[in-house]
């Protein structure tokens, strides 16, 4: 591999994603691994495989931006940026006119509002609670002895989604049991769970004009989430080609955009 590489590492609570861009911002490598217990190792493994796909090695990396909850644990990072900014940057690259970005992650859900010029105008993050996040779906699927994929497939066959109102994952689990007791079909209960996430998202979306895109791991694996969002928000929801990589992609783009002056100064965000 010749030429400089720009790397974005998104070390999330569930998965660690790495994206490698070349000097023309062409995607040349990417990889995802489970974050597990060792964030440092997860970052290294994801980077190693992404660089391998790019036919590069660590010495080729001109600049690296880390993001996600484990962003402080990425040793290679020159700069650390929040996943909010990175998801916004990634989504904007795929959809230049997008105004609203919904990132449903493992630990939290964010809604980011962009200005007409593409700048971050506002954002909101869910409160300290798992309801409305990927963890909520995983936890409930586990309770029903289903994989996330099975839950999604089941939900996509729903004709009359059940109502799951609770603000709390534990109480939502209780509500699911109530719905089972009432004899509601599993497919409708499954879709009810996705609808409850969409409802939480709708609470965070104050202004509803402009295009809406959804990013994050849940969107990557669950078509039912996109459907639920479209039904609840009553608008088309754009699903980018690599939704799970939006944060890492945005981080890599920010790496390419960091100018020489910024590189030579001590970043306020990164403390290496």
């Amino acid at each position, binding site marked *: 591999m010749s030429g400089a590489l720009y790397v974005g590492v998104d070390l999330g609570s569930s998965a660690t994603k790495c994206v490698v861009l070349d000097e023309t911002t062409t995607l040349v490598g990417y990889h995802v691994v489970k974050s597990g217990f060792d964030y440092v190792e997860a970052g290294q493994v994801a980077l190693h495989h992404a660089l391998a796909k790019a036919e590069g090695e660590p010495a080729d990396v001109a600049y690296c931006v880390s993001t996600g*909850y484990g962003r402080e644990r990425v040793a290679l990072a020159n700069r650390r940026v*929040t*996943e*909010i900014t990175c998801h916004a940057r990634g989504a904007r690259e795929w959809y230049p006119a997008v105004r609203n970005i919904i990132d449903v992650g493992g630990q939290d859900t964010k809604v980011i509002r962009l200005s007409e010029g593409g700048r971050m105008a*506002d*954002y909101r*993050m869910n409160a*300290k609670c798992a309801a409305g996040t990927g963890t909520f779906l995983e936890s409930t699927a586990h309770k029903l002895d289903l994989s996330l994929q099975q839950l999604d497939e089941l939900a996509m066959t729903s004709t009359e989604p059940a109502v799951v109102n609770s603000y709390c994952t534990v109480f939502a689990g209780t509500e699911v049991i109530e719905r089972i007791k009432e004899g509601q079909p599993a497919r409708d209960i499954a879709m009810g769970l996705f609808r409850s996430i969409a409802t939480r998202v709708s609470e965070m979306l104050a202004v509803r004009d402009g295009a809406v895109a959804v990013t994050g791991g849940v969107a990557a694996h669950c078509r039912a989430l996109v459907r639920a969002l479209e039904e609840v928000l009553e608008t088309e929801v754009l699903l980018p080609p690599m939704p799970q990589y939006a944060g890492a992609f945005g981080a890599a783009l920010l790496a390419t955009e960091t100018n020489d002056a910024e590189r030579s100064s001590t970043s*306020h*965000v990164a403390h290496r």
Partner: protein
Amino acid sequence: MSATAAKRIKIKSQERLGALMREHFLDLDEAARDPQRRVAWCTSVGPCEILTAMGFETYFPENHGALLGARRVSHELIPRAVAIGYCAESCSYMTSDIGSTLAGVSPLTEAFGIDGPPNPDLLVYSTNQCREVQDWWGFHGRRTDAAVMGVCPPSHLGEVTREHVAFVSGLLERLVEKIEHRFGATLDRDRLKEVVALSSRASALWRQVLDTARARPAALTFFDGVIHMAPVILMRGSQKAIDYYETLLAELNQRIADGVGGIPEERFRIYWEGMPIWPKVRELAEKFFDLRTVVAASTYCNSWAFDEYDGGDPIEWMARTSIEIFINRDEVSKQKFLSEMFNRFEIDGAIFHNARTCPNNTNSRFGMAQRVRDEMDMPVLVLDGDLSDVRFFSTAQTMTNIEAFIEQLEECKR
């Protein structure tokens, strides 16, 4: 400790503050043991001047609640209060203080070597800040058999009218009568004038201290303010508070002259709306320090910056100041105040703290944050947390939220 913390230039007066607090609490402890002296507990913006003028030593339980939070023990004590029927979502100052009493532990022991809060002869509250104090004082009244007396002024006021002030003056006069009757004492009106003048002077100096954050770089931050505000709460009505603020103000003015700021190379100026997050004050101070962002002004620290006393009826001054405070006003008045503060301190962004157990001192629950953003073109961030109970707080989420907010301000600046 962050990598950059070593660059922070400490406010030297803090040493004097430590000694002052020690003297204050040791004296209170002595007063509680001395049959010739009386101790009254009072709410933080309550009618303490009347109590001081009548010879009571005053103790402020909300300060104990804050101390329990700052010492990160509230979450261990709150379950004790919950177990006897106090809701876990009600004021965590109250529940942690009640829990502390039930457990027989207090941070005052470690800090000053005393058993805990001084036993009260009298408990006086004003519901000008919240109704919870009535129930909180009630707990201690039942426990100690001390008299519980209070005033319930009109709340959520728009314009504060002469009628409002006259009504509250009447409540305070009735309170005086009740205390006089109960303790066989007489309020010396000239002494009350003196105490109110001292209170007003301390408050005016406190306002000047807060105003040193208008300088660039700001001479002090919100996180300094929440420490140095102690005398204006605990010792107002005394010369000690005045002396302390004169010393502190001189030091801060010298910092301005020397170009020394609370945050070196300050990039952004933030307004903090709502209660401090006491268990996380240090972590938050370091986060903002690392982000080279100063929290330059706050509603909270400004709560004890009253209008000056003009030498008239001291009861009327107390009545007016007690209901004019931000927390006792309607949303329109609050928003107007915020707008003035944003201009006065040249604020770049506002953070609203949604304190889960303190709805009365949380102003993001009725759309104000969004109105501030839209009507004042002010970037806003709402943080979920609590004043004392860390169980309502997520460090990772909060720190990401703050970093993202600064990234948003950077984008605005480009």
